[in-house]
Each structure stands twice: as structure tokens, then as C-alpha cells.
């Protein structure tokens, strides 16, 4: 691997990884370090406000957006393991911060420099392979709507996953179907949410997978909590862990 020693990207962990899935953050940081970078972790960061925004609480989301921009102020590049959070930063933060023109201008600059992890590795640093081994023995990938649709990144994760050594990725039936998380939806419509979750786990079983790799953080937590309940044989890991070769 070519080292790119000059890059010191700021790492945006996201609130969910920070509080509930630190292993995903560690895997992402390891990936960046292995690529010869020295990721920084801005100490004031918490959340981008995506979930409040999508639940319709614009004013609350504006408050959080402001703190996010202040926490990442001055960063040259920002990398995050969540495509939906990156999509929120890119698409919605500048608009939300319009009441404060200076913050809005900063948000626009930061938005253009914020990347999802696989996207950053593949598109910005030109990485074709992380050199890691595939999670064994039989694995598949759920692309996640936030990464796949909201961010529109439908190439980078596939390229890097398909470069993993060992067992090839198994196709997941109806792969692009939502897993039913949807933030507030998972508690306002628990029965529907659980049905969609069960369908996704069934699709993974149908693919013959023992490991389900998930592209985004919310879906990763949703599916891993679901598998813990109804399918403990199925291991659910996040894209960052798969690319770092964890669980191989």
C-alpha cells in the first residue's frame, strides 16, 4: 500500500458509534492508520442531528448542527463510518444553519470535505483493496439506504468488499430493500419495523450467509439487535469491521 503521510483526516465517529458501537470506530481508525494516515478525533464532537431532523424537529436539529460545525471547524477532511450522517451533513446542514451566515458558510465548506469511510478510501485516497481477508465462511452485504441512496455511493463499498481475500460475497436477495430501522420509525411503527427486519434477516439466511455486513451504523445496530434476538447464529458486522478484516 502506498502511504499518504500528509493526510490527517478528522474522524467523525457519530453518536451511535460513540455510545453503542465503539468497535466500529476503532476498526475505521485502524483502517485509516494502516493507510498511513494519522486520523484526528476532534474532542468536542457528538452528533450531526440527523435523527432529530428526520423526525421533523428542525429547530432541535439546527441546534445540534451548530455544535457539529463548531466541533469540526477548520478540518481539512472529515471521514465517518455512516453514509446517512454524511448525507445529512452534505445536504441539510448548510440549509439548517442559514440563520447564521458565517456558520452556514463554514458548513458548506465542511460539507464538501466530508466523506463516508469506504468512499474516502476508494475515491479520495485511491485505494483498491484494504488487503484484509473476507469475514468467513459465508458472508453477504446489506448496502443500507443512507449510504446507497441518500449519499448515492453505490460503488466504493462494493469495490472494497469484493477485493477482500477469500470467500466471495454472496448476493443478498432484495439487497436494496430497507431493513426497517428509519430512526423514529422503529419505535412509532414497531410491528412494521420488526417485520422488515425479519425479512432482511431471512434474506441473509436465504443467501446462506453466516456473516451479514451492513453499510451504515443505524441499520447495523438494528440488524445486530434483531439477530441477537432471533438468529444468534448470524453474525452482524459493520462495513468498517469487514474492510479492516475483523472477524476473518
Amino acid at each position, binding site marked *: 500500500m502506498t502511504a499518504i503521510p500528509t493526510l490527517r483526516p478528522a474522524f467523525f465517529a457519530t453518536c451511535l458509534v460513540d455510545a453503542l458501537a465503539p468497535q466500529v470506530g476503532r476498526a475505521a481508525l485502524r483502517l485509516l492508520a494502516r493507510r498511513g494516515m494519522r486520523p484526528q478525533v476532534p474532542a468536542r464532537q457528538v452528533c450531526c442531528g440527523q435523527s432529530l431532523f428526520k423526525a*421533523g424537529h428542525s429547530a432541535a436539529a439546527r*441546534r*445540534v448542527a451548530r*455544535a457539529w460545525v463548531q466541533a469540526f471547524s477548520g478540518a481539512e477532511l472529515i471521514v465517518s463510518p455512516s453514509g446517512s450522517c454524511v448525507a445529512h451533513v452534505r445536504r441539510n446542514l448548510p440549509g439548517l444553519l442559514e440563520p447564521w451566515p458565517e456558520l452556514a458558510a463554514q458548513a458548506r465548506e465542511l460539507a464538501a470535505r466530508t466523506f463516508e469511510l469506504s468512499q474516502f478510501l476508494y475515491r479520495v485516497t485511491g485505494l483498491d483493496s484494504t488487503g484484509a481477508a473476507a469475514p468467513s465462511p459465508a458472508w453477504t452485504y446489506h448496502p443500507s439506504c443512507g449510504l446507497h*441512496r*441518500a449519499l448515492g455511493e453505490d460503488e466504493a463499498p462494493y469495490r472494497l468488499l469484493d477485493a477482500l481475500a477469500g470467500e466471495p460475497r454472496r448476493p443478498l436477495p432484495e439487497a436494496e*430493500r430497507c431493513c*426497517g430501522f428509519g430512526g423514529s420509525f422503529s419505535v412509532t411503527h414497531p410491528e412494521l419495523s420488526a417485520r422488515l427486519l425479519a*425479512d432482511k434477516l431471512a434474506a441473509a439466511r436465504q443467501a446462506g450467509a453466516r456473516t451479514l455486513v451492513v453499510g451504515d451504523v443505524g441499520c447495523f445496530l438494528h440488524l445486530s439487535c434483531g439477530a441477537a*434476538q432471533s438468529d444468534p447464529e448470524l453474525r452482524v458486522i459493520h462495513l468498517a469491521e469487514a474492510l479492516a478484516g475483523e472477524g476473518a
Partner: protein
Amino acid sequence: MAGRLKPVSQERLAQALAGFTGRLRQLRAQGFSDPALTASFRARARAAKLEYLSRPAFYLARLAERVEDEGGRVHFAGDAAEARQQVVAICARAGVSRLVKGKSMTCEEIELNPALEAVGIQATETDLGEFIIQLAGETPFHILGPALHRTRREIAELFSRHFEPVDPDPKALTALARKVLRERFLQAEAGLTGVNVMACDSGTMALVTNEGNGRFCSTLPRVHIAVMGLEKPVPTLGDLALISTLLPRAAVGWPLSSYVSWLRGAAGRSAGAGPREFHLVIVDNGRSRILASDYREILLCLRCSSCLNHCPIYIAAGGHQYGWVYTGPMGSVLTPLLRGEEGDEDLSQASTLCGVCREKCPMGIDLPGLLLRRRQEARPPLHGLLPRLAAEMLSHRELFQGACRLAAPLLKGLSHLDDKHLPPGPWRGWRRGRRLPPMSGSTLLGALRHSKDRTRG
């Protein structure tokens, strides 16, 4: 808090939904296999509709002029009641006592059939699915499959009760429906249809159907009444041709449906084929209000059902729980705008905002964006204490870490309780099919800082 939509409970219905929408998803993929062509269709169709919607008064005046030039009559209805009155009055003037109907979502919306029955006019739905749900007294379960939720056994019982004993065999059922409908077609003094798209430059309307019943309704009886939502016209015949192919591509994957009729005016007193009278009823019923609002993009909707067929919520819940004639993502946007009954607002929550509806919409309508807008408008700024508290917690590192420390033992405690003893809260919903996530209480950032301090020693 809890939404009204739930997964359908009957296994048979769940399978019917999965099968029907699955076939339509496959077909749609065939209809739009070329991404460049899809993008070009979408751009041109949007431009045509947006042009019309930018000057509707101008275009409608032109349309009315052309229709009347061709011997037709144009009626404007401000709301559903006025539209019903106008249709009833047209029937009364023309001495219509029996009427055949093609499928029309707009007629479902204005609840036309009960109004016709009330004045003694027999109105018969002639689309097979609509025919079935009319007998059953129901609203459509799906735009293309109105009676999708009915088994052939139930349909046989329904037919036997209304007509003559019949076996629950699809061929026998179709043959009986055909026999009944043929008679009605021949007896009817008027045919009533919807309008899929209409060209303002020539007064031509298009009907896109698969059973041919729309063509019967619009050509056989001596009076043809077309009921059209205000949003349906496009400026030119070329635009009409474009939408005539875009609609069946999006709905069933074909460049054209089995029957595409382009109709213009009335045959008048001449010996030519076609109805002697043609009436176009243009229905506003809230559409002007939508046009003047931030939701105007929903007026681009062609009612193709593509968003229903791809929406994971619709596929799991089916049509009836949306509570009205419009269902799926477009229904969740339209129902509160057009009807606005209490509880309709909840429909904006019935979405994961996964975005598949926008991706598959032939007109590229930003349905998730419109649903999100409704969510935002349903709540005043900083509504309630919880979002405000959450915002503070998610804006301050110390508060966040403190909250994580407090939440960890709470979450652990809750996860050890069985469902019966679980106190009310969001965890109740979450625990359906999901464990609560394990939480250590120390955050990733806290742990990183700690290990850094240690190495520095």
C-alpha cells in the same frame, strides 16, 4: 405516538402482496432498463407538467376552447360535492339511468358512485377489480389491483350472491363478469371514465387501460363523461404521447398498455362513430391549494403505482390501512392534503424515508422530501421538551458522556425485564423482535482519550 399502519395479519394476504408487487417491480425494471432513456423521459415529462402547472389558467382556457370546438362541453368543479352534482346534472339532462364506469382514482376520491345511486342511476364499475370491490363496498387495495386482497372463493361468493351460482375458478368468474358487463355496456346510456393525461393544444385525452373496458365506456354509450383532476393536462400532443408511454412503463414495464385510446370531443350529429355527447368535468378539490403550497411537486403524480410496489411499508401493510383511496408513499402525501381528517397527519411518520419511492418514481417526485416537510410542519419549532433536551445533550460533549454513563445501567436493567414488566417507553416497541443494544457506558471518545493519556504516562 403509535402509527396506524401494521403488517397485514393474514399470511395469504402477505403472500399476495409480495407476489403482486414483486411481479410489478420486475416488470418496471424491464420498462426502464436503459438509464439514459429513463433520465430523458423523466426530464421531458417533468418539464411538460411543470410548464402546464406554471400557467394552469392559460392552459385550461385553451383546453376548454379546443374541447368545445370539437363539440364537447367543459365543466369546472371546485370541490367533490360540486363535481358530483355536475355529473348527476349531466345525467339528468341526457336522460341517463344506467351508466358504465372505467377505473378512475379521481371518481373514487370524490365518492361519485353513492351520489349516482342516491338519484337512482345504476353505475357499474367495468374494470374487473373495481367491479369486485364495488360489489363488496370497499376502496381499492392497490391502484392496479383494486381487489388484490380478495380470494377467488370470496369473489365467487360475492358473484353468486349478486348474479348466479359460480365456481371459484378464475375462468368461470371472468366469464360471468364478462357476461354481466356485456349486458351493462349495451344497456348503458352513458360511459364515465377518468383521464390519464390530456393535451391542451388539441383537446385530446388519453386513456391507458389493460382490459379494454375504458374503450367500451368511452365509445359505446351515446354520452361520454370524463372526470379529470386539475393536474392532469399537459401543453401539447407530443407531451401526451410521452406520458402515454411513461405511465405503462412505470406501471407494468411495457412501452404501451394493451389499450391506449386518444379521444377528442364528440361525434356530434354526424354519422361518425363515438358518443353523441362528450362532457369533461375538471375537478379541483384542493389541487389549486396544493399548487400554491410547498407540496406542488405531488401534482406531477401519474398514479402509476410504482411507489406502492417498491415501498417496503406498502408491501408489508397493504392498501386499506392508509384509510382512503390513495395509498403508499403518494397516498401518505396526498391524503392529508386532499382530505385532511384527524389522524391523516400520522401518515408522514409511516415511512423509513429509505428513498426507494423517489428512485422509482417515473416523474422523480421527491416523496421522502414531501413526507419530511409534513413531519416538520406537524411540529412547531422545538415542540415539546424531549427534542429540546435531546438537542442539548447532543450538542455538549460533557452532557452526552454523562447521559451515556446514566443510560448504560438503565438499558441493562431494562434488558433483563420480561415484556410484562417493561415500563412504558420507546424500548417497548424496540423490544418487538429486537434486543436492546449492549452499552458499556464509556464512550469511544472517552476511551480513546483515556488510552492516549495512559501512553503519554
